[in-house]
């Protein structure tokens, strides 16, 4: 909650009535807002002429943008244009952007959920019927055991992390599976410090032990699931003794962890990018789902599966259908249900699967994609295989970037449209526990910056012939018609504490715990998942495994947090975390500049020695323009969700 008063400037307080954080904030809450008032905010529309940005009026910018888009569509067809939406923007804006894409005839609409939780959507929709957290943040207080895998919760979802810390201090069980010794790992009952990319082997082995010890929930399996015998057959191969050679986990430790997870119920399973950002990301998610189902931890308070969302509105932007394979509400693009949108939007719609984020840049390289319209994304920092992104962008006829700052990506655009921040616009966000929450206008925008929905609305009218929306509320009213799970939500009833979807006639107050009686697909599906190694492995030339991610202080490509004084001071420069012994061995001292090379590229960065990371593994955060770790990440995609493997990259360190 941000309080503006004339005398006091801005003041951020935790809203004590909020069920999400109960009024508690992390450092980004307290200190993370200065970017909003930065002198570097974009204030006017800009169009590039002879390599230089020139300030133009909104009318000129909108007319030129629309005309150029229309010309490209006319010449090359609608699939020559692609849209990148944003999990930082509101539901209304995401809905509007995907609608524009589809109305002009293309499913080339995607956003950063592709790079974080597309495996969650794909995996959990397949096994449970809903790609979302099954419980609420509050319900974590009723867990007896937390199983945290691939999530540095106290740094990435600090307030959820504090629930676990408090639970642990009260004596609850905490099993942490992570290659790094995270803060939660330090206080865990058991820390399974396994090798990166071996999640499926680890999870299968845990389930192997559960079956071996007859600790599975037989009643739940019988009544609520299908596919058990096939799963049992697959799991038989994963005895802890065999799996130790893959994961590096001692059998006894693994057995003990498995017993706690299965016996000390309810158990909540929390995961994040450590699970999803792999070539087998979707399979990792389905393995987690297997574990939840096998132990009967779904549909019960204190149990459940919690994919922790890394941006304010990843759940919402995915719900809105800003994804190339789904219309709003996860209606597959090739299904008959698309008719619903043809009626709602009054025109024929495309039913071919569109391009995903990384495929868009490939298509730009091969020349089939001519224009990309990016809203609030910075792929030149965040996408895997940056050199391909660069080549793709170079090849485009038109790049439109709508943002609040001149990001690296905006810098190479043909048109830059100045947008407003979330403190300057109205709309809704849907958080990690499916809670639809309202945001309100707190501040005036600088210069001529306009809300994203307004800009899209103007483009939609001109390019797609869309009827004009008066305000975000009128878009939300349409969302209620488009997505049944949102049908019962109104701007009035979700304010101020929000409500969790599904919210509809049957659940007017929303739904805290999913799947209590049945799954949307009937029975939960147990899916046998064979272990496959990660795409990249070490060899004599590339002898370290690098994992990438965020740190506590920065958010994503740093566009906002690096313009925020205290956050930038805490983490001012790029670095690589190296195990202290490894650093000694290769002769690198703390703060020394070294080169990291992968099979895809190289960067320079500073050494930070630590004992929190095991030998043979290095960690590099991706926030920094000046040393983009995604130059090193290859384009190894999960075939099911198309997420790149950001978590396992073979590298060598050159001192």
């Amino acid at each position, binding site marked *: 909650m941000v309080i503006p008063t004339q005398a*006091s400037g801005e003041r951020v307080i935790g809203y004590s009535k909020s069920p999400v954080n109960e009024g508690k904030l992390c450092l980004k809450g307290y200190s993370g807002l200065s970017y909003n008032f930065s002198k570097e905010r974009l204030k006017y529309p800009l169009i590039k002429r002879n390599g230089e940005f020139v300030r133009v009026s909104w009318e000129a910018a909108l007319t030129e943008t629309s005309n150029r888009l229309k010309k490209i569509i006319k010449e090359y067809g609608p699939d020559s244009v692609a849209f990148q939406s944003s999990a930082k923007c509101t539901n209304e804006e995401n809905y509007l952007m995907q609608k524009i894409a589809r109305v002009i005839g293309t499913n080339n609409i995607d956003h950063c959920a592709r790079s974080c939780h597309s495996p969650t959507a794909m995996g959990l929709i397949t096994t449970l019927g809903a790609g979302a957290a099954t419980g609420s943040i509050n319900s974590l207080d009723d867990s007896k055991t937390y199983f945290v895998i691939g999530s540095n919760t106290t740094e990435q979802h600090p307030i959820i992390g504090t629930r676990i*810390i408090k639970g642990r201090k009260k004596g609850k069980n905490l099993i942490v599976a992570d290659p790094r010794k995270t803060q939660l790992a330090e206080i865990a009952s058991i820390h399974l410090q396994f090798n990166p990319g071996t999640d499926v082997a680890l999870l299968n082995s845990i389930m192997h032990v559960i079956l071996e010890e007859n600790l599975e929930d037989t009643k739940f399996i019988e009544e609520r699931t299908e596919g058990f015998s096939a799963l049992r057959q697959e799991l038989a191969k994963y005895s802890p003794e065999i799996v130790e050679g893959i994961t590096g986990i001692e059998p006894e430790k693994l057995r003990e962890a498995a017993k706690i997870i299965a016996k000390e119920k309810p158990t909540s399973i929390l995961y994040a990018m450590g699970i999803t950002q792999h070539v087998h990301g979707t399979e990792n998610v389905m393995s987690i789902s297997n574990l939840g189902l096998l132990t009967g931890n779904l549909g019960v308070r204190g149990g459940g599966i919690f994919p922790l969302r890394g941006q304010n509105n990843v759940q919402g932007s995915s719900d809105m259908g800003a994804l190339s394979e789904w219309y709003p509400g996860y209606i597959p693009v090739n299904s008959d249900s698309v008719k619903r949108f043809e009626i709602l939007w009054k025109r024929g719609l495309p039913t071919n699967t569109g391009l995903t984020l990384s495929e868009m840049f490939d298509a730009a390289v091969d020349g089939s994609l001519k224009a990309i319209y990016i809203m609030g994304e910075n792929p030149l920092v965040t996408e895997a295989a940056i050199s391909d992104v660069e080549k793709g962008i170079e090849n485009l006829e038109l790049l439109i970037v709508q943002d609040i700052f001149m990001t690296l990506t905006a810098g190479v655009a043909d048109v830059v449209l100045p947008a407003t921040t979330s403190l300057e616009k109205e709309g809704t966000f849907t958080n990690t526990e499916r809670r639809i929450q309202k945001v309100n206008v707190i501040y005036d925008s600088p210069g001529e910056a306009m809300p994203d929905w307004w800009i899209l609305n103007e483009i939609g009218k001109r390019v797609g012939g869309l009827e004009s929306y008066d305000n975000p509320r009128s878009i939300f009213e349409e969302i209620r018609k488009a997505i049944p799970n949102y049908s019962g939500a109104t701007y009035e009833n979700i304010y101020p504490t929000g409500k969790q979807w599904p919210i509809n006639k049957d659940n007017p107050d929303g739904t805290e715990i999913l799947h209590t009686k049945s799954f949307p697909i009937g029975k939960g599906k147990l899916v046998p998942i064979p272990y496959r190694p990660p795409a990249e492995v070490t060899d004599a030339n590339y002898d370290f495994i690098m994992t990438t991610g965020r740190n*506590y202080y920065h958010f994503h490509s740093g566009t906002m947090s690096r313009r925020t004084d205290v956050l930038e001071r805490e983490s001012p420069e790029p670095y690589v975390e190296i195990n202290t012994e490894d650093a000694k061995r290769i002769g690198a001292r703390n703060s020394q500049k070294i080169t990291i090379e992968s099979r895809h590229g190289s960067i320079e960065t500073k050494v930070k020695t630590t004992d929190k990371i095991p030998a043979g593994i290095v960690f590099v955060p991706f926030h920094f323009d000046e040393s983009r770790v995604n130059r090193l990440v290859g384009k190894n995609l999960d075939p099911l969700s198309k997420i790149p493997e950001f978590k396992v990259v073979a590298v060598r360190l050159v001192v």
Partner: protein
Amino acid sequence: METAFIAISRDFQTYGAVERDGEVIFDRVAGFDQVSEERSRYAPKEFLMKRNENVLILNVENKTAVFGIKSCDLKGFYLMDKQVFGKDPFYTEKREKTLFANFVCSEPCSGGFCSSFGGPVLDQYDLQILREGEKFHVMVSEKYDRYFGEFKKEAGTFYSDFSNRFNSKLEPLPVEGIERRIKWNSELWKEYASACISCGACNFECPTCYCFDLYDDGNERKREWDSCILSGFTSSSAGNIRKDLDERLRQRFYHKFVYFKKSKDTYLCTGCNRCVEDCPVGIDIKEVITYDYNRE
């Protein structure tokens, strides 16, 4: 009170504690009857030290009156004064032009421990207001006496009697001598560090914390509230001399209970309990006071 409020509002921009969406915050108020007597969600430090402000040009500030601050929060400014008043021109300019009308709580609040530091009746104030039924008792400093010219002056012991009653209801913690008892190598600091997520709530919510960081933004030089539990705080060329989080957490308590006591002869704490209420992992400053350090 309304009469005095009207008189004051002729000379000052008036602010007060008001309820919005279930939280008590500070905003403009047009009458004393609009002022909430509930404790605000936060200590309103930003009236004197904004969370983020320009420090290149010293602006002449408007005269501001703030109604409804609670004694514990107001006391924070009097403690801050000892360190920054007269030295920090931005703070000083606002401090001199701001009138605070503080409410004395009639009952102890849940968790608060103000009686450990003298209780809610302050001996320094601008207007100190204590409700008794429908009636208000007001203590007025000389500076603002003129606004209460026509009111009955009462001598006597009403306030001191109230204070004694209040402090006997809320037993003070054994603060006295904490600067000698507290232990450098106590296991407390490591225990706290294992749970702390470095959010800074204990600093940002504290009515006595005044540290800030300086930075440049375009053609402006700004400062922003800072937190001593962060590793970049008071960083030198060798980094923060308190390398680990447990050392930084200890520093915060030592500053409040040892160093400030030694240099200013008072503790840098008002017993407001805000750092406890807003700590997401339940670190309790009261434990630092009551902990049996001899046991270790």
